[in-house]
């Protein structure tokens, strides 16, 4: 057990024995690619990590899954989250842990210069520990990246479905981006809900911002129009661009019974006409 205690002793006094060498390694590794982490921040992070390692290895090499490893896990999760938010890659994030190997191995080699068996055992134990810590870092990095993506997706979903009131009894929904089933569902629900709330008899679906129309998108549009009709309101589709009109014809999509207009302005003019409004220009 004397061999094991060398690594443990090293980690227990890590801040003093390992910190300068590790920091130098980290800076060297970060030198090649643009570092987004400031030197002082890196200094604090490495110091804190080594302090937590020292605490965790009070009773031998820490097991990161155990209760003793909990502060270490929390620290690595926070680190991964901040790196993910800063836009670092997963390998850059994992390098934080893996770069510690070099300084530990160097220190072990000096301490166990005459005991090659012990050196190999210790190296293996430390290597295993650091690998697990590194993998944990990568996993939490990935988790935080996924949560960021998920949040952005939800925000986009909300952003993309604004129902605007153009006039008394006239609603408009400018659709932007690709229409898939999930989005159509949200769009349909929010539009129908607003129709009930405002008692609007006319709804304009503006598809200027929809990049492509295929049979699936057309089917979604048809469903929305039918649902609006079932509720007792009228629907006008506007913003049909020339390419989209050609695509619709080429695909043989039947838009029979649906009013389509080239621009939102045309659709609004039609809505005014249907609800009995006239727009006149005053003055000279």
């Amino acid at each position, binding site marked *: 057990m004397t061999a094991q205690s060398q690594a443990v002793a090293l980690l227990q006094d890590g801040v003093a024995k390992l910190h300068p060498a590790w920091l130098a390694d980290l800076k060297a590794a970060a030198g090649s690619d643009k570092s987004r982490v400031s030197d002082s921040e890196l200094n604090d992070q490495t110091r804190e990590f080594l302090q937590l390692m020292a605490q965790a290895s009070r009773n031998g090499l820490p097991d990161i899954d155990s209760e003793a490893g909990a502060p270490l896990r929390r620290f690595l999760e926070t680190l991964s989250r901040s790196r993910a938010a800063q836009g670092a890659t997963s390998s850059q994030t994992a390098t934080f842990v893996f770069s510690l190997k070099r300084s530990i191995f160097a220190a072990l080699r000096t301490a166990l210069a005459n005991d090659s068996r012990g050196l190999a055992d210790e190296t293996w134990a430390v290597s295993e520990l650091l690998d697990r810590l590194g993998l944990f870092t990568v996993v939490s990095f990935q988790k935080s990246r996924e949560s960021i993506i998920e949040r952005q997706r939800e925000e986009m979903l909300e952003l993309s479905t604004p129902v605007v009131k153009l006039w008394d009894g006239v609603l408009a929904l400018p659709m932007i981006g690709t229409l898939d089933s999930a989005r159509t569902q949200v769009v349909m*629900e929010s539009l*129908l809900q607003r*129709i009930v709330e405002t008692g609007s008899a006319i709804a304009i679906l503006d598809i200027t911002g929809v990049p492509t129309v295929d049979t699936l998108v057309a089917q979604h549009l048809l469903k929305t129009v039918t649902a609006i009709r*079932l509720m007792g309101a009228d629907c006008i589709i506007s913003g049909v661009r020339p390419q989209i009109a050609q695509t619709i014809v080429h695909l043989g999509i039947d838009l029979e019974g649906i009013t389509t207009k080239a621009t939102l302005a045309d659709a609004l003019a039609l809505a005014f006409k249907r609800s009995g409004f006239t727009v006149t220009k005053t003055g000279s």
Partner: protein
Amino acid sequence: MERIPILRIGEFLLVTIQVDMHDQLAMNLQDDLSSRIQTTGARGVLLDISGLDMVDSFMGRMIANISALSRVLDATTVVVGMQPAVAITLVELGMTLPGVRTALNAELGMQMLSSAVASEESADGGHRTG
């Protein structure tokens, strides 16, 4: 036996569904409504389903049936107040209810009935004189 009340307003009949529909209730409504149209000679039926928040394909067919049978008995049907969830469900079930007139609320539905009946009468009148 449970029944949905059918109210007469002038030359129109008003049917308001405010309870959860089950199949027998729907069948009874169809029977009652067809006989009431026949006895009263009503020209229009206003079917208010704003209280209906769940539908299945049977209920969708009932709405289509009521509309079709009143058409045969020379009455126009307007379905009013369909909830968004109900509309989405019917569309997803593939029941687009072609030929069924719809309106947002009872007031607009009444207007629609009046104008539909008026235009029919003028068309009939024109046919006879012409």
